[in-house]
């Protein structure tokens, strides 16, 4: 500033332009070059800023919505494979009768939040099977005691070397039947509705009466908390055969009603625990 004031006095010119011009001419060549470069950059900035803002503006739109929360409870095949691998075929009645029940492994994941849940089992009773569910633990080598062998097909597809898993039988999960009439019809009677006192009892007596064995029995476990030692909870569904079923009281229908059916429907579900 001092320099500028001195200059002003010396040349005694009131014209701003001339003062500037004189200032400029007094500068050394290097300063002149610097001043010009600085001016050019300033101009570039002045151009660039608004132009950039214009590009950034364009036409901008924003849409916004929610992603609905899924039911984060998965029931799947062994080794947490896709549920398509859960297979109940090849149930060998003869080996069941000789004391080797059919056992299939499945898994349940309660997701990141490990919510408590319950297992539900519904099945028709055309064949007098007995269904039990046990906790299981996964191992990669053969274990002592009773275990179930499971081959993970997806791992085989992906070319993994180890894909056989062994599941040891742990505690049984108690299941409570919700619609059986345990007094008069053993475990195979069914209430039309829970606590209604009305029962399905005949085979197509009337048009609206479903066949007794086609009405599923509905069973539920209690509250289950996750297995903290494993990523997923593993279970074994055990199927055995009730040889004495046909002799039980109230099961005359099984003998008389042309019981040639060989198909049962089994529904296995995991649901969020909503009880107390």
């Amino acid at each position, binding site marked *: 500033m001092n320099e500028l004031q001195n200059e002003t006095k010396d040349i005694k010119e009131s014209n701003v332009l001339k003062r500037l011009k004189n200032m400029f001419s007094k500068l050394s060549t290097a300063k002149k070059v610097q001043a010009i470069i600085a001016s050019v950059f300033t101009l570039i900035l*002045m151009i660039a800023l608004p132009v950039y803002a214009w590009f950034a*503006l364009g036409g*901008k739109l*924003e*849409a916004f919505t*929610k*992603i609905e929360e*899924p039911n984060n409870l998965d029931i799947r095949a062994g080794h947490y494979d896709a549920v398509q691998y859960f297979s109940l075929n090849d149930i060998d009645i003869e080996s069941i009768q000789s004391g080797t029940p059919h056992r299939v492994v499945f898994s349940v994941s309660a997701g990141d939040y490990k919510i408590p849940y319950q297992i539900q089992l519904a099945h028709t009773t055309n064949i007098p099977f007995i269904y039990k569910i046990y906790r299981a633990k996964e191992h990669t080598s053969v274990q002592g005691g009773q275990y179930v062998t499971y081959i993970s097909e997806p791992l085989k*597809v992906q070319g993994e070397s180890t894909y056989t898993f062994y599941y040891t039988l742990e505690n049984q999960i108690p299941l409570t039947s919700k619609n059986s009439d345990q007094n008069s019809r053993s475990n195979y009677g069914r209430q039309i509705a829970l606590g209604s006192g009305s029962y399905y009892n005949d085979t197509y007596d009337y048009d609206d009466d479903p066949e007794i064995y086609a009405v599923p029995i509905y069973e539920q476990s209690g509250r289950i908390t996750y297995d903290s030692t494993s990523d997923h909870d593993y279970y074994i569904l055990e199927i055995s055969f009730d040889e004495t079923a046909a002799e039980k009281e109230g099961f005359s229908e099984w003998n008389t009603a042309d019981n040639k059916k060989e198909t049962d429907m089994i529904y296995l579900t995991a649901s969020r625990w909503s009880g107390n």
Partner: protein
Amino acid sequence: MKKLNSGQSPPNNELIRKRRNSLFKIGVVMILAFIVWVFSSVAWFTMNKNVGGSGMGVKVGGQNFEVTMLSGSRDGIFKNPYHIAVHEEEALYWQMTSTNNLINYNEYVDDDHPGDEGLHPNTEGVISFNVIPKKDSVDLKFDFELIGYQALYNDVNNTPTDHTDDELAMTPLSQLDGGDGTTAQNLLNGHILFFEHRDEVTENGVTTVTYSTPICSDEDMHRIMTRTVTGKNTATPINIYWVWPNTLSTFVNASASGVTTIPFCHDDDSYGCDSYTAITDNIEHFPQYYLKGISPDDTVDVGTIGEHYISYGDMYDQGDNEIGMRVHYLLIKLSVTEGTAVGGGP
């Protein structure tokens, strides 16, 4: 510059002085011109930024086009407080109508009428806006980006029993701790699909829906659509058909695994695009957008997916689950700029 440098040993002081004079005059005039130009630009900038209001009056755009909302549209129901928290100032809120929305239109009334709950697998719809060219024809580039957010409440006042004073924090997936959101952010690109066309044919009581011209995500997770819009001062509606397919087999042929679903994209060049190949190419290029548990370096080809559908279909379903667990809210950003159009007309 050369002439200025020659000032080191001036041959003629008068000549140099004249040159400097003219140089200064030109410089000052240029500066003034630039200032005028900048101010006019800023004024124009400010004018277009005023996007407040509702309905048809709302618009954004550059000199050669305007973007406006459908008539009778209104804000989505998740705007306050969620969208507002992540809204970019100069962007326009994309408004919805009862038939043109992202399942974000109907508000909660009571427990029997809980209102819209947002997207989930097996949903589809259309969202639209109008483009008004300010000249006879304008080439436009539409750049879409989907960003997932988690809405978390922080107990800022340290009152654990009182949640009414908790502060909402919207965190984009990319900023979640430990990179927890990376997988879900990738999967948004392959699970929520955009198409330019949707056709519906009903034959013998069976309705078949076909989607054409996918707007696929590129390596930067942007989806680019180009289009030439004609008709000066005429509103042309632009429709974006969105789909969150239920299964991978709805757009990948899995007949080799015995799946009978017919993919909703055809390879017949309808609308000038082999849509089936376009989307399956995108799966092969960016498998991490479609399948959970796969890395970008893994080689995936559509033939193998068809042959081992149980495995790959499951990886897709697990992807749906990952999105559902990680993403609370979804922001769709659209930027419309002028650019060279190569795509078809509306």
